[in-house]
């Protein structure tokens, strides 16, 4: 559904140009939960932002065959002086979704209680992440892009996220980037490792796990 063609992205550092994504071409299998493993600084978040269309590659193209989410799991994207509810309304508006539905779903899903009506800057990072997850789940995406799901909430909330993804697995899939094998094992059917700007794709999560642990 999502197709990457010759994606290249480099950042300028003091010691010259650091190539994070090096001519990556890959076609994500449709309706398959896919994991991308990478160590810290391997460029996995950059790759996810390029897939989302949030960031533009230096060269190469991304082709989307459906509605793709923004990179979920970050704390950005919310305005600190607005309440959780107001931020929900904003997201609903820019996606042209039904505002009341999105607000209702998020309120239920994120379990923020009274905080839902308080400024986001009063939230803990866990609460922000729960809000981010809630809003994104309220909108029907074909592909959900998730950055480091392990950082989100307690075991209970994680179970809830997994159930929500499973419940819509006939329509939607997930692409997760993480540095933790367990996350990928829990969610994904297929997996790739991002290293030195190249994407090494494996047929099974186990094969990827071996390769990832070896490095």
């Amino acid at each position, binding site marked *: 559904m999502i197709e990457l063609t010759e994606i290249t992205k480099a950042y300028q550092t003091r010691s010259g140009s650091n190539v994070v994504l090096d001519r990556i071409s890959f076609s994500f299998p449709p309706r398959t939960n896919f994991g991308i493993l990478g160590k810290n600084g391997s460029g996995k978040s950059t790759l996810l932002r390029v897939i989302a269309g949030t*960031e533009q590659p*230096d060269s190469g193209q991304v082709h989307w065959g459906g509605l793709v989410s923004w990179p979920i799991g970050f704390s*950005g994207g919310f*305005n600190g002086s607005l309440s959780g509810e107001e931020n929900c309304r*904003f997201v609903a508006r*820019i996606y042209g979704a039904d505002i009341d539905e999105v607000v209702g779903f998020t309120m239920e899903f994120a379990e923020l209680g009274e905080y839902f009506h308080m400024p986001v800057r009063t939230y803990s990072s866990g609460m922000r992440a729960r809000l981010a997850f809630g809003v994104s789940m309220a909108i029907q995406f074909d592909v959900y892009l998730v950055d480091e799901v392990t950082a989100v909430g307690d075991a209970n909330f994680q179970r809830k996220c997994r159930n929500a993804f499973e419940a819509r697995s006939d329509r939607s899939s997930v692409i997760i980037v993480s540095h933790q094998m367990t996350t990928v094992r829990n969610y994904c059917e297929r997996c790739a490792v991002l290293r030195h700007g190249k994407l090494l794709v494996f047929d099974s999560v186990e094969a990827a796990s071996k390769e990832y642990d070896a490095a």
Partner: protein
Amino acid sequence: MRGALTQMHVVFAVLLRETKTRFGDNQLGYLWAFLEQGLMIGMFAGFFTVFGRVTPPGMSMIAFLTTGIVPFWLFRSTCGRCMSAVESNKGLLFYPQVRPLDLVIARAVLEAVTYLGVMALFMGGLALYEGPPHIESLLRTFMGLGLASGLGASLGLVCCSISVFTPTFERLFPSVLRMIFWFSAALHPVETLPKTMHDIIILNPVAHAIELVRSGWFPGYDAHSAEPLYVLGWILVLSFFGLSIERMARRRLELT
């Protein structure tokens, strides 16, 4: 690719969000916009009265100053707000369909509505006090205000994109804007200025916009140097330039 409809959704959503955050958490924020302008007009009115300056015949001092100061501030405030649009809303660029240009447009619209409100309130208040004004051409006044707003937005877009590359720019430019005030004929009719001064000020597109506002409002006001097409030319050139660097800035923006 995204359609015009998505962009409208985005601009509208950002606009609503900005109305709530324009003056921080302060509920009385919009009052400040009125107070600021009122104070400035009052200050210059007091100053000119003490020094015995006379306005052109048939115009009250307050009305004359309002038609100069409010359009200028519409320009200045639009430019300043648009310049910082990306810096203060960086988080929103995480959503792929939100682009720097949308943030700039939303802010420009909000400033235009705010200052139109200020203008209407002052002119309305004045009409109650001095009796109904004889307006030459309301359309011309609106054209002047529209051009002032367009100038602010297009210059703001240029500045916004430049400050992505050089952040210090954002701190330096407000003093430039402040200086432009003295070359905008906000306090004097352009045609009454000495020749050399007149020739300098007439280069400034903001002065043209202000003169248009005045000649629309006051019957018989001589603004024969004011040329709407000149201002429009500036807006087009600035927009073209601004949009080109916005494209480069979009690549350059790093979201963390």
